[in-house]
């Protein structure tokens, strides 16, 4: 399918999103998103609850199907390729989920080894070395034999990052890396992201609503509101933005109270419904 394959470029954006629209049932969540992510850059996607930032992240890794638009990654439009082609790209990206999403029945080491065991023919001893290396890189050296339930929240997220990096991922995606962590542990995760950027020049996309963390790690920032990009730019550009909605978010100003009973009811009933059931496996079946 030549129309879907662009020549891979050494320079230029690693990810290009064009007019991306995502629908859950009849309701459109993302209304035509456009942006680029350059190589070795960290893009932080900011937004309030229900703004569509998590949906955007899930769509970027292929967990949700866009209703329209293109997502160019490694020279291919992942919205239009087959499951096999998408899987080939997924072997080169890693995703760290909000709660870690480690497999509870496996040790930390086995979790990190899983993608290697599934996708490579490496010897067990080689895999063991890679696992140790990856866990060292996230500051969890020596925790190979622990079960995920024996780890603290911050350690689980670190282990999840190690698993996401297991296949030497070129792009890392983070969903709320510091959510639910105390400030010190959260700062540790920020530090880890900065270290990975410095040491491995990874391209990273981080979804968060923690402002301090966002300004610390971002090269580019994007503020999403109600499914639209409200602002895009460097942290400095964001800080100096005069857009009222951006200022409201950055200065943490509360929404005006809804005083009318009817308005309140309308606000409650306009919430978006949940994601489509079985959306995950059916695509491949």
């Amino acid at each position, binding site marked *: 399918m030549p129309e879907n394959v662009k020549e891979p470029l050494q320079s230029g954006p690693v990810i290009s999103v064009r007019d991306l629209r995502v629908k859950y049932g009849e309701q459109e969540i993302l209304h035509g998103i456009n942006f680029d992510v350059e190589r070795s850059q960290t893009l932080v996607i900011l937004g309030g609850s229900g703004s569509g930032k998590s949906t955007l992240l*899930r769509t970027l*890794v*292929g*967990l949700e199907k866009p209703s329209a638009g293109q997502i160019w990654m490694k020279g291919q439009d992942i919205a239009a390729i087959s499951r096999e082609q*998408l*899987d*080939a790209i*997924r*072997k080169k*990206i*890693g*995703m760290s*989920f*909000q*709660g870690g*999403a*480690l*497999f*509870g029945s496996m040790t930390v080491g086995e979790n990190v080894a*899983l*993608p290697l065991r*599934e*996708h490579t023919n490496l010897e067990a001893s080689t895999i063991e070395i890679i696992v140790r290396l990856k866990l060292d890189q996230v500051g969890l050296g020596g925790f190979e034999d622990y079960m995920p339930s024996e780890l603290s929240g911050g350690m689980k997220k670190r282990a999840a990052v190690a*698993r996401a990096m297991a296949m030497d991922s070129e792009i890392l*995606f983070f969903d709320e890396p510091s959510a639910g962590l105390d400030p010190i542990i959260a700062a540790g995760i920020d530090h880890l992201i900065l270290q990975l950027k410095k040491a491995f020049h990874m391209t990273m996309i981080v979804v968060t609503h923690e402002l301090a963390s966002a300004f610390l790690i971002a090269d580019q920032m994007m503020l999403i509101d109600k499914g639209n990009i409200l602002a895009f730019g460097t942290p400095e550009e964001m800080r100096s933005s005069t857009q009222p909605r951006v200022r409201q978010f950055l200065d943490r100003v509360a929404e005006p109270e809804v005083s009318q009973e009817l308005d309140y009811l309308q606000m409650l009933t306009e919430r978006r419904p*949940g994601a489509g*059931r*079985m959306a*995950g*496996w*059916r695509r*491949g*079946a």
Partner: protein
Amino acid sequence: MMDSVARVGETVTNILAYLGGLASLAGRSAYCVFVAPFKGRHLRWQAAISQATQVGVRALPILSLITFFIGLILALQSAYELRKFGALSYVASAVAVSLTRELGPLITAILVIGRSGSAFAAEIGTMRVTEEIDALETMAIEPVDYLVAPKFVAMIVMMPCLTILANTMGILGGSLFGVAQADFTWVRYMQSSLDSLFLRDVMTGLIKSVMFGITITAVGCYEGLSTGGGAEEIGRSTTKSVVISIFLVILVDLIFTALFFFVSKR
């Protein structure tokens, strides 16, 4: 009027969609087990063996005990009627035939639904809620290949084995009554049970047990995969998997029993 017609139509569509979902899950798993290994993708034998241990080996004690009692109950119940005709000696064949053709596979299926079908739904449902299924997908590991296919293999192998055990234990249970109350010796009771059985009886039971295994796995895994968000949802899909499995197992039982009845009549 139009409203109720539309509602009937919607229900039928939903039922067909559900059955389609089960079939698609079973089909994808069959592809993983029978086709994918020839395309260079390895089958997860270790996972299948560990599932087989869970589904089969760990169920042995409770299944043995239950079917022993069922055999004894069957002997008592059939003796109640047979006694009136002075035909107590038919107890052995009554127990053996009803167990191998019907009750052995059915009791096994009900027990496996309670032990394993619900566990499949809860396990996969929890993985759905904690985003582990999504994590598999982002690692380019197909969740059905990884989680569901080994369960199908385990069930298809273990269900007939468990059913054979259930039949044997049931006949042993019946023999307890036979020896104690119906003037049988152990050897004569067993001989009489064996004489009354045709290979066809045993085979129809075993074929049914395989179909039950497929049904239970498909429903349990489908319910698990379609779990929504939250702990409550896991409970809901677990309950639903048990209720739907029991219903579908009985339905499959009816279909196959009718099929065997009409085939053997010819």
